[in-house]
């Protein structure tokens, strides 16, 4: 390991959907306890790349991933890595809030339960409370944990999904456009939350909104047509992009 602050390293990652190549030889270093934003026009491969980090592309039968993705010194893309174990270390929050149609409590406790992270009901209760607090939802739902999760508002549902993801105590949190289905107020709440969470997790966030990337991230990667065009400090990318394409995108000429 050359750089101890690198949490994740991707080397020459290619992704194919059937015949179509969605990602072309992408290499990147993701730092620990930091927010990295992936931006780029629709279909540029940023979500596909995000799904490489917890092997969610395995679910798509036609998808094929090659290259190395190293998490804490281990190539997670190798065959002897169990994606189930990997996903306990790399949590994910999806584009549309997708709580299970069960109670709030069951949503958060499901992960710890299947991974056997709580020996007693008390431990489980503690994990649920802690996760909901970290996700900034505890105050709103503390007195109705047994209510249906689908009855929450969109923003609350998304924070519940964050709580559900951090309940298994991952070290990396992947967020796939977590605010695209939310109104500006709910978005602001989530962004604040990300700010608070980055002290504990490496966060990778895919976003359509360049303002959001500028607000929440330290590092930004710009993708275009399956290629990583530019990667660097967010400030530098937005003020002084090295690449012409990046400049065209962030100034609204393409996208």
């Amino acid at each position, binding site marked *: 390991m050359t750089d101890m602050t690198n949490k994740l390293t991707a080397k020459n990652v290619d992704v194919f959907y059937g015949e179509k190549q969605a990602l072309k030889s992408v290499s990147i270093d993701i730092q620990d306890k930091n927010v990295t934003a992936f931006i780029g026009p629709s279909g540029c491969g940023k979500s596909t790349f995000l799904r490489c980090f917890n092997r969610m592309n395995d679910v798509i*039968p036609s998808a094929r991933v090659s290259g190395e993705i190293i998490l804490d010194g281990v190539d997670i893309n190798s065959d002897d890595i169990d994606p189930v174990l990997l996903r306990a270390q790399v949590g994910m929050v999806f584009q549309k809030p997708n709580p299970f149609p069960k109670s709030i409590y069951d949503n958060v406790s*499901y992960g710890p339960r299947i991974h056997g992270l709580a020996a007693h009901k008390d431990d489980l209760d503690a994990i649920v409370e802690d996760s909901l607090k970290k996700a900034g939802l505890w105050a709103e739902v503390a007195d109705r944990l047994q209510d249906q999760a689908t009855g929450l508002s969109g923003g609350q549902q998304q924070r519940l999904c964050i709580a559900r993801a951090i309940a*298994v105590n991952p070290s990396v949190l992947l967020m796939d456009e977590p605010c695209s289905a939310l109104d500006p107020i709910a978005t602001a709440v989530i962004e604040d939350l990300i700010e608070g969470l980055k002290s504990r997790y490496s966060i990778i966030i895919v976003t359509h909104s360049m303002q959001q990337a500028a607000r929440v991230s330290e590092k930004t990667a710009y993708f275009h047509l399956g290629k990583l065009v530019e990667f660097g400090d967010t400030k530098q990318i937005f003020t002084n992009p090295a690449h012409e394409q990046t400049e065209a995108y962030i100034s609204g000429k393409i996208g």
Partner: protein
Amino acid sequence: MTNFAELSTEDRLKHLQGTLAKRHAKEKRLKTYGIIAITFAITFLVVLLTTVVSNGYTALQQTEMRLALDIPVEELVDENGTIDLKKSADFNWSGMLKKSLRKNFPEVKGMMDRRNLSDLLSANAGYELRQDLEKMGRIDRPSGYFWVKTSDDVDMLMKGRMSRDIPEDQRRLSNVQIGWVDQLVDQGAIRKVFNKSFFTKADSREPESAGILGAVVGSALALIVTVVFALPLAVMAAIYLEYFAKPGRVTDLIEVNINNLAAVPSIVFGLLGLAVFLGFFGMPRSAPLVGGMVLALMTLPTIIIATRASIRAVPSSIRDAALGIGASPMQAALDHVLPLAAPGILTGTIIGLAQALGETAPLIMIGMVAFIVDVPDGLTSPATALPVQIFIWSDSAERAFYERSSLAIVCLLLFLIVMNLTAVILRKKLERKW
């Protein structure tokens, strides 16, 4: 050719109105076709139902005859006053009834006439009286009037299903016999009561003692076996095909074959059951266990297809969510997808079972068409099923079986309606919206 671009606004409008009339006419025509088709279908349904019901409702009643009996108690009971089964078996119950009937008609002499008179009684009347008394254990009222079943011919005559106008030699009751019946009616010794036997007994050679209970129990046992075998297998198969099978030629082949299996004639499944379950495994003939297994084979594709459809209807985001926090594919399927797909699976299963309930052909192949007089008491005891019972009765010569098979059809239809209604209600109730 008209150049539409050059037409004035007024002419354009005129032209459009011209085509409009034509379009409306076409629409009207299609609507009429639809209404005709629906009317046709409903008419047939109404005709079918009225025919079955009007043929069958009379089977709800059974004609009985009043006889004055004087039961010789001392010949039947032991010292405690309870009926001795051995003595009872030796006693000529039937003879006692016949004797009593003859007392009503002292003028009847000669072997042939006496036998003709006895034919007015049900052949089972003596046996059924004996059974009733043996069940009670003691004879509290040895003498007095007793009501016993008449023969099915008298039953038909009383229900107006045997015409007095047709020539005597084409009738099952002679003029003399009809005269005797009329005498009994005048004496008030004939009555019609609710046909309890129809709902409490199994098959019999005598229509007046035949019932559907044996067949209903046989059907129920077979359906239980069907659910137990078909539901878990089908759900597992559907989950495997939806989530675990690697796409490719083999999977495609399996898929095509499952869809084809749903269309295979049911008698083929019967043949398969005969060859495999009876022939190869040597399982008992006529048993609801085997019948249920054959029906399970037949229902499998239906449930698999329904399950896959309802699994697909569950948003993939739910499964993604489960996988995303590290649930194994099986956990995601069992913990999250399956509960959400359950209403669809349930309704699919009920529909498949309703289909299985009405199935006759495969059961005939494995011997559930046998003549069975006992209500089955287990999965391996010989049994028949409701549709098969209808088939057997409709094949019988006696006019009385005709009305009984009609009533059995009504019962079968009621069962089917109840099952389908349950499916609809469950779907309505459990349906979830995202």
